[in-house]
Structures are given as structure tokens and as C-alpha cells.
């Protein structure tokens, strides 16, 4: 009897363990670790940091295409590194900008905009996020042409899994409108946040960024729609552009948030990428003091292992760019001509200065803005002394070198010597300005490539690599990722029908031949 009682009490105990069939379920399915919402300012910060490429593989598009197309950095190696160096299609290197920007920048921005647009206390953040969205989409559309824009990033908010592609013309017109409106709407008397990663809540700087980006976007239309370009240049100038390097839009990398291009070049691709000859020659031929800040060479290195001190030198006079058009075997034919020991002997980007692992990365700079402004002056779209503006742009970029590392700093007298020697020459202004823009945008691959396509300068010669797959002299756009043919085929087809074949040749809307 005793045991039966014992057992029965056990059964009753068991009964208590069943605490009703759904009791506690709702609480159980709440994540106790991750929040379901976050201050949109912090999310905005993520959208800004991630706009400098999310990991080292994502930088392969820059390293293998953008830098190579504009002939600044080049690799002789093929296979997984092939791309702009051979003018061939390599689908794994044409997609990273698409995936990183949509997944880590656009997604976060769409959330920030959604959370702030109706919140009267967050109007400044709302307008900042519109400016940043314009920045992100310029990179996307400049790279691929027509891209999902109005429906992009809404996989969660609106359940859109297959966003339609918008024509670049519409995207640019909206970007111009957005930048104009958002910059104007920024108001220093309203709430700001010191948690703002870019300007620490300084609205006046945000405004200058907005208008400087508006200038950039407007100038993009110089070939295809000069009238619109001119009208927005005027708005940008009237709104107020960046006034000094202190206004630059910068990601300040740290030892914990590293510069991914630098990480990739100091690690996996350490011995694989070199400064291209056209770039080094341009700097060298003009006695450009920036060469000493940007380049180093391991004189006589016969292998990657020998790329180390004491061979290392930053002496501008011995810098030697790798000639365009060779692979890792045919490059042998250049050794005698240039007196190098091996391909490892050519100049590389200095990983102790401009690309050290915590080197800052620039989105929009005062230097670029001055150069674009100078061009606008030359074109008569705004008033001012183009030569002074041009020199201010060069000066600003040279001064910017000190921000990478004190070893890269350029003395004021050297700057003065250079700008004195390089003034605008009538009839050659556009080439001069845009060649300087090419230098001033070094490492900002997307911008360098876009401005090269827009302006046609510097006057680069076609990469003579014999296995080229392209029809013209240069790669004009990146093809859409293979994943889009799988997940978004109908919309992709419409975009291809509008824009032309999904290859490296089709020109994007603003890039009129």
C-alpha cells in the first residue's frame, strides 16, 4: 500500500510537470539574446561601415576589375584572380559589389528609412540615410547599370523577393532629387546624435556631404544629359560643398575594424598585385610627390618571399609599374626591358601607408569635389576660377596623404612646387582635371572607374593582353550575378532587353559612346 501511494504521488508529480499545453510557449519563442529592434542610428552606422566592403573576398571585384580597368593596380595571375587584367569574364569577381551592397548596406538603410521617415524626432537621421542610400546606389548602378532600386532591400518589410529592375535614368533622376531634398532638409536645430559614426552628429558636414555627392551625381550625366547635369550642379554649389579635408566622408579603420582591401593584400594576395605602369608613369613623369607615399618596391626580389626589407624602397625614382597585358609567364618577356629580377620586383601599393590594415577609406572627399567643381567651371555650369579650384583639389589630396600615415605625409613646399608646375592648360582642362581625379580617387575603385568612363580620361591605352574577350577597348560594366538568372529571371530579362547583353560590353545609360 505504501508503495502504491508512493507511485501515485509520483504520477501526480508528473502531472504537474505538464503545465498545460501551451503555457509559456509565447515566452519560450522570444529570443533572449538578440533584440528585435535597434536604435536606427546604430543600424545607420552599420550601413556606413559596411559600405567599405564587408570582407576580404568582396574586395576581389575592386582588385581584379575596377583597379585593373583603370590601370592602377594589376595582377598578372589568372584563374580565380582573372578579370580586368585579361579583359575576361570571371563571374566570381563580378558579383561581390552586388551582394555586399544589397545585403549589408541597402538592407540596413531600408530599415533606417522605414523607422525614421515618420518620426519627427529623427528627421536628420532620416535625411542622412537618404543621402547614404544615394551613395550606395550610385556604386551599384555605376557598376551594373539598371538595377533593382525602388523595390530593393524590401525582402522583409514588403516581402519582395524578386525586385524589379529600374532603368538607370530613373535611378539617377531619383538620386538627384533625393540628394537635393535630403540635403536641404537637414536641420542643425533638430535632434542629432553623437553616435553618428561619420560626422558625430555634425549636420553642417552632412549637408556638405549631401551637396558634394549631388555634384558628383550631377556630373555623372555630363555626357548623356548636360542640361540636367548643369541644373543640379548649380543646386549643389548653391547648397554648399565641402570646404576642406575636414569635411571628407571617411571610414576610420581600426585594428578591430580593418581595411579589407589592405587585409586581402597583406594576406592571401600579398605577392599577387602590383601598381600598373600607366599609373606609376603618370606620377613619375609629373614628379608627383604622391608616388613616394603610395608606392614601394622590393628591388631585386625573385619571389614573394623576398618582398621584404632590406629590399624595400619608397624612393619615387626607382618605382616601376608593371606593364599592362601580361600573365605570370609572359611577363618574363618584360624583365630585360625594365631590368627587373622577376615579376615580384615591380612596384606595389605601400602596405605601410596608404593600405596599412587600419588605413582610412574615403567615400567622398574635398579633393574630388574641387576637381569636379573645376570641371563644372570649365564647362560653364558654374562660376569661379577653374585653375584655382583644380589646384585646391590637388593640394587637398596631397594633404590627405598625411591622414593615411605620417610616413605618407607630403611637405607643403613639395605640394606648392607641384601645383605651381601643373596649371590648367586651355583646351586640355578636361583631361588634366580628370587625370587628377583618377589619382585623387585612387583606391576608391568604383568612383575611379565611373569617372573614367564618364570623362574618358586619363587617356588610357587598351590593355593589350592577347586573350581579351571584350569587343571594345575597355570593360564597360559588370554583368549581373549568376544568382539573378536563378532567382529573378523575369526581371533580369527585362533589364537585359532594355540595356543590352548581360556582358562586359554593354554600356550603361549615362555612358554614351
Amino acid at each position, binding site marked *: 500500500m505504501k*508503495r*502504491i501511494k508512493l507511485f501515485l504521488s*509520483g504520477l501526480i508529480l*508528473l502531472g504537474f*510537470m505538464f503545465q498545460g499545453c*501551451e503555457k509559456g*510557449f509565447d515566452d*519560450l*519563442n522570444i529570443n*533572449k539574446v*538578440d533584440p*528585435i529592434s*535597434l536604435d536606427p542610428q*546604430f*543600424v545607420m*552606422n*552599420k*550601413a556606413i*561601415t*559596411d559600405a567599405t566592403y564587408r570582407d576580404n573576398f568582396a574586395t576581389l571585384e575592386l582588385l581584379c576589375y575596377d583597379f585593373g580597368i583603370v590601370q592602377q593596380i594589376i595582377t598578372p*595571375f589568372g*584563374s580565380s584572380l582573372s578579370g580586368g587584367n*585579361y579583359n575576361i569574364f*570571371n*563571374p*566570381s569577381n563580378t558579383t561581390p559589389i*552586388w551582394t555586399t551592397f*544589397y*545585403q*549589408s548596406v*541597402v538592407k540596413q538603410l*531600408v*530599415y533606417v528609412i522605414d523607422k525614421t521617415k515618420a518620426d519627427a524626432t529623427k528627421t536628420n537621421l532620416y535625411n542622412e540615410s537618404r543621402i547614404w542610400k544615394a551613395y550606395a546606389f550610385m556604386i551599384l548602378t555605376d557598376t551594373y547599370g539598371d538595377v*533593382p532600386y525602388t523595390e530593393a*532591400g524590401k*525582402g*522583409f518589410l514588403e*516581402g519582395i*523577393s524578386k525586385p524589379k529592375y529600374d532603368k538607370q535614368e530613373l535611378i539617377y533622376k531619383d538620386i538627384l532629387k533625393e540628394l537635393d531634398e535630403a540635403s536641404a532638409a537637414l536641420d542643425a536645430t533638430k535632434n542629432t546624435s553623437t*553616435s*553618428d559614426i561619420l560626422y*558625430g552628429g555634425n549636420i553642417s558636414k552632412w549637408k556638405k556631404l549631401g551637396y558634394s555627392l549631388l555634384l558628383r551625381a550631377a556630373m555623372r550625366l555630363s555626357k548623356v544629359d548636360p542640361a540636367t547635369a548643369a541644373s543640379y550642379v548649380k543646386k549643389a554649389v548653391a547648397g554648399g560643398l565641402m570646404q576642406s579635408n575636414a569635411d571628407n566622408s571617411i571610414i576610420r579603420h*581600426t585594428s578591430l*575594424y*580593418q581595411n579589407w582591401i589592405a587585409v586581402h593584400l597583406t*594576406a*592571401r594576395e*600579398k605577392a599577387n598585385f602590383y601598381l600598373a605602369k600607366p599609373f606609376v608613369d603618370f606620377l613619375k613623369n609629373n614628379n608627383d610627390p604622391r608616388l613616394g607615399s603610395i608606392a614601394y618596391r622590393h628591388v631585386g626580389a625573385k619571389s*614573394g*618571399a623576398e618582398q621584404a626589407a632590406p629590399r624595400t624602397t619608397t624612393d619615387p625614382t626607382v618605382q616601376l609599374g608593371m606593364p599592362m597585358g601580361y*600573365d*605570370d609567364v609572359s611577363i618574363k618577356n618584360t624583365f630585360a626591358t625594365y631590368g627587373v629580377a622577376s615579376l615580384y620586383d615591380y612596384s606595389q601599393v605601400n602596405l605601410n601607408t596608404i593600405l596599412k590594415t587600419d588605413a582610412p577609406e574615403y567615400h567622398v572627399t574635398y579633393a574630388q569635389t574641387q576637381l569636379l567643381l573645376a570641371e563644372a567651371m570649365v564647362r560653364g555650369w558654374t562660376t569661379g576660377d577653374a585653375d584655382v579650384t583644380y589646384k585646391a583639389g590637388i593640394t587637398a589630396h596631397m594633404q590627405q596623404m598625411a591622414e593615411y600615415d605620417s610616413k605618407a605625409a607630403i611637405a607643403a613646399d613639395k605640394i606648392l612646387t607641384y601645383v605651381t608646375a601643373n596649371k590648367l592648360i586651355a583646351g586640355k582642362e578636361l583631361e588634366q582635371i580628370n587625370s587628377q581625379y583618377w589619382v585623387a580617387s585612387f583606391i576608391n575603385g568604383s568612383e575611379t572607374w565611373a569617372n573614367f568612363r564618364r570623362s574618358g580620361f586619363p587617356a588610357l591605352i587598351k590593355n593589350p593582353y592577347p*586573350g*581579351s*574577350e571584350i569587343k571594345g577597348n575597355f570593360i564597360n560594366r559588370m554583368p549581373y550575378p*549568376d544568382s539573378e*538568372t*536563378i*532567382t*529573378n529571371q523575369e526581371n533580369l530579362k527585362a533589364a537585359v532587353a532594355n540595356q543590352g547583353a548581360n556582358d562586359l560590353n554593354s554600356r550603361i545609360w549615362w555612358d554614351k559612346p
Partner: protein
Amino acid sequence: MKKQLLFLTFFTLICQFFVLAQTVSISGKVTGQNKDPLAGVNVQIADGNLGAITDGNGNYLIKALPNATLVFSYVGYLDKSVKLTGTKVLDVNLTVDPKSLQDVVVTALGIKKESKRLGYATATVNGDAMSTNRTANPMSTLQGKLAGVNISTMGTGPAGSTKIRIRGQSSFNSVNQPLIVINGVPMDNTTYGIGGGIGARSGQVNSTDGGDGFSSINPDDIESITVLKGATASALYGSRAKDGVVMVTTKKGSSKGIGVEYNANYTTDEALDYTDFQYEYGQGERGVRPTTAYPQSAVWSFGEKFQPGMTQVLFAGSIWPYEPVRNRYKQFYRTGTNLTNTVTLSNGNENGSFRLSMSNSDNQGILSNNQFNKKTINLGFNQNINKALTIQGNVNYSNEFNKNPPQVNTQDMAIPTVLYTLSNSMPFAAMEQNQLMPNGNEFVMSRFLVRNNPYYSLNQRFENVKRDRIVGNVSFRYQINSWLYAQGRLAQDYYSRYNDYNIPNGYAPIPAAPTGFINGSYTQDVRNFRERNYDFLIGATKKIRDFGVDMTVGGNQMYRKTEYNSVSVTDFVQPGLYTIMNGRAKDPLYGKTERSVNSIYGAADFSYRTFLFLNVTARNDWFSTLAPSARSILYPSVTGSFVFSEKVKLPSWINYGKFRAAYAEVGDDNVAPYSNALYFGVNNNLFPNPSGASVPVGGINTTLVPNPDLRPLRVAESEVGLELKMFKSRVGLDISYYYKITNDQILAAQISDASGFTNKLINIGQSMNQGLEMQLSLSPIRSKNFKWDINLNASYNTSKVLKLGSSPSDTVIVVGGGGGRTIKEVVGLPIGALYTYLYKRDAAGNQVFDKASGKPLRNDVPAYVGNVLPKYFGGITNTFTIYGVEVGTLIDFRLGAKMIAGSNMNALRHGLSKLTLPGRAEGYVIGKGVNPDGSVNTTKADLQPFYETPNVLGVNEDFVFNSGFWKLRQVSIGYDFTKYLSKIKFIKGIKANFVANNVLILKKWTDNMDPENISNISDNETGLDFWTALPPTRSVGFNLNIKF
């Protein structure tokens, strides 16, 4: 059959010649059930060699000593011994062996039932078959032994995990592994690691197989494994059993007093090499061999043609012969060994019993730094407290230590990847001598920096996986009266899993550390897993005349919690010291998930006499992971069986016949907890704003679009089956046909990146699986000294995707893949459609080459090239007993599936494949075909880029292979020495077996690899391979079992 009987009779007659003179003749008739005469019964004199066999009327005649003991044995009946007492006529009636004709099967919830009552198919393997010829993960041993069950082993080392598919793949996505149940209680079988699995921490170089849950079991403790295949069989387990149930019953103590048993198993593993590479052109790129110091071409064989006397310069400048290095696997991999010792102690009396086993298993992998040690203690007991109350329990403790599981399915420090792609003239001695630079950093040998010197990987990388686990349950059963009982059970599966691994100091592919630090990284993570199940069961049995009713009602509450604590550090203060404290940048992670399922269920079992049975079950589950409106689901099942051999007059050769039919529905929530909302993450580290203040960064932390409105998926399955035992039970046949529809699948469908996400959880889709399963057992020869048993199982499964998406235009869903190799679900095609790019061809079928470069072009969109799931699979077990020597062989097969053998793509792009030979002499290739303008292609393409192009473009056309095989999977030769031990009282039995596993591939269609040898463990991505797995091994050894 008749012929054999004749032969047997003849055989018996011969034996009679040797009968000695002083014997007497004994004759009689042997009858069985219902007093039917039994033909072919073995009549044997105990302790003697003589024997006889009954004729067609059950009569026998034998000569024996007047006081001899006759032993009558017959398949399906219990042996019967009769001592002669002077009679000359001895009629015997044999009793049916309840285990044989009316097998007792363990069904859902651990309820035992006579097999004839079952309306669905099950399959059972007894423990001996698993312990004699064993594998480190006991699940792999079952390969080919069970109809309808397809088991794949990964090429990931001794502690690697297995993939089990029962009756095809029920859903496109999520997990399709069956539920593992030990002694009636679920056990976690989570698969850790590899390719984005649970073990991987993003950004870290860790791609090893962290193993699954089943490896915690010691095969010596297994009494039997029963697989419940259909939804009907598993309906009482509800959601978790949608893919069937693997029920493990562990051994119990017997009531026969003290018993001690010792089992030793020792096997050696030898790596098998199926590569057939070119050995004509050696290391180098673009036709040039390494001639200067520090070459970086170690994984390229696009060098020069081997000529006698040639040399090459490697590493810092040492000179080596330029000649083929063959048998690379044999040169690098060692012979692995596995030694398991198990001691078992059991005791019991009529009031209870216990069994305690302790086991130690040591596996030395074929990689010389890889070891897997497993210690288990298993205790099972039952005790009758009084006549009514019984307490039963079982506890299994295991301690597992997997040291340096091999890196696979990646490049970084993945030795299998490097050995597969390694240049064919790379001397192993050169690599062994040059692992580190003078400064202690890695000595790079390939411009693909992540193709590391295998000796470097072996000596510099480390990883430890340790797991302590206790799985156990206690149940109380109270027999209230003769027809009513109540039972309560508490069960828990708990483990803590420790994992740490490094990236070595000086590893070349990672950036240098800031000044004052040395680079490298170290990660340490600890997980805790707990699953608790409380359940109760009340059962009643009533019999009213010819009708019987069994009623069972019960309830279960499952609660599962996982916790994850991990810290990873980058760069170190002190070189060579891999600790968290020594690290510079620290990146901690913590995760916790909880889920619960509450259930109530009931079953009613009706019987009419002994031949008609009807079983009805219902279960309702409530899921914590789903929205309140969707979280409750009811699964009904109804099954029936009709033992027609007991009702209908059948031809005499049919001994037993049963027809069965079943229908059931099960469902599954199949989503991770917290899939209902969008969650955010805050970055571990703050970021400086312009004024230097540190500010937080955070954002949406998922690439998966959550869905708060998910419904459980539902599987509806019907099956019919027929069981026959014929020719005096020498032939047994069990056939099932099933038809299974899965609705409302929960998919993480790939969506456009432009949506901001990569995948979206949706509740869509309908798919169908149908198939036939057959299990055939034959005993063609059953004489005294020679027995031959055949057990054949074969399964046929086809599937079809019926619906996808919410609108008819949605016809495709991408499951996964990369590099031009994709698995999709496509309406109208079977589950698991393989897609890849094909070479571009013109209308006439000519291949099209780029005019400028001469390289092949690809089609714009990938094409369908086949399906990944096998249509046919099964196995044939032959057991021969010749004079007491038992010889067993298992041949298994898998047919009717395709795979993309991407590892061949690596052999191609690295110049190892024989496909790269054309054009070598000339140094260029002119592709046979046309240019896009239609003209004949005459462009000379550079050789190496030409052969690299398929990889660059994702054209895997050349490597779509039939993934089928026929394998001689197991061989064992055993002998029972017990009969020689009659004088040694304290030893009750000795049995020894020679065993061999993975003996031979009889047929395969894949080049350069074993089709099963895939390192991609992702649940859905079967049939895709790119980075080579650890090579398959052939193991040979012995098993020794001694009973005291």
C-alpha cells in the same frame, strides 16, 4: 527446391553409412503447429556428428545409442531435445519459436507488439551484426542492410557523421534525418560542422566534421535496431518522426545469474586511391617547370614533359628530380587503427536484473594527427518492487575526444584538398623538410596561399572536440490490475561539447599582426545541450470472446535548450600560446535557443481472433516555435493487418501470409526557434566617430527573411504490404508499396540578393515520394554442416515536385550550391534537380569557342542534368555456415542518381586530369568547334587558361556522373569455439570473427573518386562535391567475444 531436397536426402543417406554397429534404429514423425507434419527437420544426436532429416511426411529414421539425446531443430521452431529411454518410435511435436513466426517488434514509444499485428513495415537488425563488423559511427554499419533505408557516410574521419534517408527525402529543405530513439526516448542527433553547419563560426578557418549524436553509442550495447519507416509507424512520435524513426534497444541483464562478457574488436584502415591522373607533365605553370627558388606552383601540373634526368628547384632553392611521384595517398596517409574493448557484467533473478558495460574505443585516423577516443558506460536495470510495480532504467554515459578531425570541404589547411590537387612531381620529402621559414612563418609553396603544405597543416593546426554526454531514462510501470497499467517516464539527453581550434602563428593567408603582436587566431567554444522528455502512458487490454482491444493514452512534454559560448581571438602577445587571454582582439559570442513541444496521444488496437487487426492512433502536438494560430496539429493514423494464412486455406508451401495497409499523417514544425521575427545584432566592438568617441554599430543580423505565419509541414503517407513465409519458412518475403505526399513544406528559398536577403522562409510546396521496398530471405541450403542464408533488400523510390510557391508561376526553388553547380527543386522534376552550365553549342551541336581567346563559351542559363537522390538502393547479405565457420558477405548498391564531381574540376584546372593532355606538346589548344559567327574555330588558345575556363565559368558538364555503385561492403568470417570448451567451466563461450569493411568497389561510374566520398555534409546538398573528402578506407580486422 525439390532438387535441393533430393540432394539433402541423399546427403543424409551418405551420413548413414557411418553409423556404428551397436546403435539402435529410432524412427518417428515430427509435427509442428496444428500437428502438421514437418519436412526437412534436422534430427541430430547431441554430442555426435550423426544426423537425419525428416521426409515429406515428417518421418525420420536415425541410428543412435540407446541412451542418446536427440535434438530436433527446424527454422521457425524452438529446438527440442529428447533423451532416449529405450523407445524405438519417437514422435515429436515442435513448438513455434515466438521470435520467428510472431516476432515481437518494438514499436513507437517502446511498446512491444507481435509483428503480425502491425499494419506497416519495419526492419530490424540485431546487435551482433553491428558489433562484429563495426565502424566508428555505428550508424554506418547499417549501410545496405535495411530495405528503404539509405545511409551515407562522409569522408571526414573516424568521428564523422552519417546521413540517413528513409523512403526518400520527404522535404526539400531543413533536416530529413530520422529521429533516433534509445529505449523509447528521443536522442539528439544534431550534426555539427562542415560547410556552414552548426559548428562553423564565420570568418574562422574551421571546416571539420564535428560528428553527430549517434556516435555516442557503443555498438556492443545494442540489442537491436528497429527502423520504423513509414509515417504510420512513427505517427505516435509526431513531428520529429516525419522521416522515420531509428529505434535502438540496448541490452538488458538476463535473469539467469551472473554473466561476464568481453568483446575486443581491432581493425586497420587503409586509404583507397581512385585517382587516375596524368603522370606525363609535371609541376609548373604554362608549360614551365620550377627552375628558380621559391616557386609557387605546388598545386599545378601544367609544367614540362618528364624526361629522364630532369631536375626542379623547390622551396628555398633545393634541387629535386623532376619525375612523377605516384601513390601519393599511400605515401602520405598512414594505416589507421581501431581498437575497442568492452566488458559487460550482468546479473539478475526473477525480481530484476541489471547490465553494466564499460567500453573503450581508440581510433587512430589515417591522418597521423587524428585520433578519436570514446569511452562509454552503459547501465540498464529493471526491478520488480512488488507484483505490480516495476522500475526500469537505462543510462548511457559517453566521453568522446576527437583530436584533430581533418579539415575538409574547404582549402585552408585541408590536407585532402591539397593532396588531391598537389602537383604530380612534388616530392613528399621536400615538403616535409620545408614547412617553416627561418622566421617561423609558414613556408608558402603555392600562389594559392590556402593550399598549404600538408605537413604544415598536420603540425601547426590543431583542433579538439570533446563531448561528455549522459542519455538516460527511468520509467515506472504499475500494473493496476490484470488489464490496466500506468507508466510514467522521465528522460534526459544532456551533453556538453567543447571545441577549440587555431589558425597557426605565421599562417601566410592571414594579415600580419600590428606591431608587437604575432598573427594567428584561436577559438574556444562550449555548448550545452539539454533535452528533457516527460511522458506518461496508460494502457488497457481487454478480450471479449474473439475480440481484443488494447487502448493506450499518453502525453509527452519535450523541452530542449541549447546554449553556446564562444570566444575567438586574433593575434597574440606570446607566440605559440593559444589561449584566449593571450589574444589581442577578442570576439565573444553567446547564443541560446529553447523550444518545446507538448503532445497528447492515444492508440487503440483491435483484434479479431488471431488474424485480423486494426490499429488507430491520434496525436496532437503543440509547437512553441510557431504562431499560436498555427501551432497545434493533429496527426491521425489507421492501419490494418490480415493474417490470411490463419483464415484462408492456402497451398501447403505457404506457411505464413499477411496483408497490411496503412494511412497516416505526420507533421513537423521544422523551423529553428525565433524564425518568426527579425532580430538584430550589436557588433562586439565599438567604432570611433570623428571626435574619437566610440560608438555602437549594429544591424539586422540575418540574411534569412523571417516569417511569423509559418504552418507545420504535413506528410500524408499510405502504404500496403504483403508478408509471406514459404517453403517451410525457407523463403521469407516482405514487400511494401508506399505513397507519400508532403504539403506545406517550410523552405528557406533562395531569393534575389537585391531583396537585401539571401533566403526566405516560406510555407509552400508539395512533393511526392513513392516507392517499393522488398526484403527477401532465403535459406537455400540448410544441412547440418552447410547452411546458406540469403537476405536481400531492395528499394525503389521516385519523387516529384508537385507545387512550389504561392502562384502557379513559381516553379523553381534554389536549394544550394555554388560555382555553377546548383541543386534546385523544380515543379515536375524529381526532388533534388542538379543544374550546371553547359558548353555553348550551335544549332548543329558544334561547340562554340570565343574567336579572340579560343576559349570555350557557356550557355546563358544552367541546364538540368539529373537528380541527386538514388532511385534504387539495397543490399544482399549472404551467410554461409560451413562446419561451424560462418562466412558473411554484404554487397550493397545505389543506382539511378547523378552527381557533379567537382573535385574533377580541380584536377582539370590544376593540370592533373588526363583531360588536360591534348595540346600539351604544342602548348596550345584549338577547340574543336565553331566561333560565334559560325566559322570554324582556328584560334589557338593558351593551354592552361583553356583548361581553367570551365571552372571560371562554372561549366561542370564534363563532370556530371552517375553516382551509383555496387560495393562489396562487408566480409566477415566467424567461428564459435564454444563447443571445445565443455571442460573449461568458467568460460561459457568464445566467438571470433575476421572482418573487413569497404572491401571492394565492384562498379562505379565516377572518374578519380569513390562516388560516396563527399565532404559536403549539408542535409540537402547531396550530389555536389568540389573539395575532396578524406579518402575512403578499407578496414580489416577481427572481433573476439568471450562469455564467462
